[in-house]
């Protein structure tokens, strides 16, 4: 009988303090995110949304508590180990300026495969070359115009840049996709079409999506909403 897959995220009694800060900015008693879930995280500025994402991505480690991501207790892993873990299992989309200016669109998309053999291998399972896989993903995200792909990435519109970033986060089918306000610079229409494409791709590869936004209007599109201001027991307002 098969072992059930561990949860995407399992947090218990987690406390995190920035180095040099007077107190903890993030205290979470319990948080569980299931595989394949689409989670919406909202909260006012300073409530620790980005901090939480940084913890999930293994950039920071909590000072106390357990932080299990995909069954790996990240708080016990070395920083190099966490970098490997991120390379293999996590796709990340920033709010803005996601792309390396001196790489082409396709090179930007295949970038994670330079740092993770696992993701390269997974990408090559579907296509003979990484470029083909990148073009496939870009096509799904409505970026198939060859002329557009030839342009320097700085000459793309913000919406196009965010979709390239999404393709990069999705290449090699990472188990977890983390997005920190990726739509805040997009207008309503573009935002919704971007989300639709993102959902479709996540669903296709069974990727868990953790999505941060100020825009509570997007809430209904997700499986579940996490209100960090309420969950975070830390006195973050006075830090």
């Amino acid at each position: 009988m098969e072992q059930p897959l561990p949860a995407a995220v399992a947090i218990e009694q987690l406390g995190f303090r920035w180095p040099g800060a007077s107190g903890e900015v993030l205290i979470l008693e319990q948080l569980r995110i299931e595989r394949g879930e689409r989670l919406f995280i909202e909260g006012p500025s300073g409530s620790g949304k980005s901090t939480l994402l940084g913890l999930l991505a293994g950039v920071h480690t909590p000072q106390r508590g357990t932080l299990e991501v995909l069954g790996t207790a990240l708080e016990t892993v070395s920083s190099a180990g966490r970098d490997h873990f991120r390379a293999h299992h996590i796709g990340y989309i920033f709010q803005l300026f996601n792309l390396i200016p001196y790489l082409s669109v396709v090179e930007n998309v295949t970038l994670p495969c330079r740092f993770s053999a696992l993701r390269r291998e997974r990408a090559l399972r579907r296509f003979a070359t990484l470029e083909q896989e990148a073009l496939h993903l870009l096509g799904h995200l409505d970026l198939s115009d060859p002329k557009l792909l030839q342009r320097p990435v700085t000459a793309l519109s913000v919406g196009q840049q965010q979709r390239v970033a999404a393709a990069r986060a999705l290449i090699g089918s990472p188990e977890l996709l983390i997005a920190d306000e990726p739509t805040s610079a997009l207008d309503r229409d573009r935002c919704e079409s971007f989300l639709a494409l993102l959902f479709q791709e996540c669903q296709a590869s069974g990727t868990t999506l953790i999505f941060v936004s100020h825009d509570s209007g997007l809430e209904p599109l997700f499986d579940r909403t996490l209100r960090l201001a309420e969950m975070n027991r830390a006195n973050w307002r006075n830090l």
Partner: protein
Amino acid sequence: MPILTLAWKSLLNRRLTALLTLLSIALSVTLLLGVERLRVEAHTSFTNTLSGTDLIIGARGGSTQLLLYSVFRMGSATNNLSWNSYREFAERPEVAWTIPLSLGDSHRGYPVLGTNLDYFRYYRYANQRSLELASGRTFDGVHEAVLGAEVAARLGYALEQEIIIAHGSGAVSFIQHDDQPFRVVGILQPTGTPVDRTVHIPLEGWEAIHIGWIGGAPIPGRRITPEQALTRDLTPKSITAALVGLESRMSIFRMQREINEYRREPLQAILPGVALQELWSLIGMVERVLLVISGFVVVVGLVGLLTALLTGIDERRREMAILRSVGARPVHIFGLIIGEAGVLTLLGTSLGLGLLYLLLLFTQPIAESHFGLFFAIGFPTLVEFAILGAVLLAGLLAGAIPALRAYRNSLSDGMSVRI
């Protein structure tokens, strides 16, 4: 490895700065290598001026002065060496050969040397190479001359050319031995030594043009024709110096002492190898200073590299955060920046080396004909490889400073992107 291709692409993206940095490194490397080549070449050509001579005999005086006029044909002797003393030493059993030298006159600024056929037989330069004729023959008659390669080339002289010898060594001399012209019968191959700049005449000819001269001036009204000169006894009374080769090097010091202690006349003997070395240690100073200066120019080039990379680091925090987000470790960030420094210095030093060879290719003929310096366009020497290695290492060290900064940034920033 993936990080190096990133470094390369990042540099391509900043072509202009990268190219300027690269160029400044390349030029400084060319300068440094060029000065080093010049130093080595000047030294070899300097020590190559004379070879195989064990002793130089002249009137007592400064040893450097003796070396300068007998080997480099510069300056003049204050006193002469009598023919009798010269013959006495020349006939000693431990002496293998001698070359008598009479100096002091000139032809259009080029020194005229009175000597005999032993000069062409025994004179050696640059590792035992002997003089060779490019055309004609050695002198036979009293009023015949053999030209050094440069004299012939510069003055456009061919065989059969008649030349007038001027009294004294100035380029413009008012007293000419114009009553007894000389005929060019031979022209020597270039040697890269002062021989190229010398007009050689037989000692008898030297004697003939000075008949009736007292104290550097002709007695008025006592000019004679060449034909009259030939009827006189042309055995010299004195010469300026003599080069001596011994049968065995074992007797050098004994011979030198005997000459220095010679009773009948104040003489001195010097060891040309030692004297050349002494003179070089004086001249070589300039060369060393030049080398140090070019070393500093390389440092300036590398400081340029440091500035170019360092100013970019804070603007590139976002790029680093993106790289961290796709799984790059802080060491990758370090590697990216130091990779850029490495690529720039590697290309810079290679280009510098290339420029050096280009420069050598163009200046080689000029250096050889004008300064007698021969630059072999061969593989870089061990010292040059060491210099290149040192520059490369210094470039990486300079790159380590911005790399370390980027490394620290990416540790503290993590993925939080700052604009």
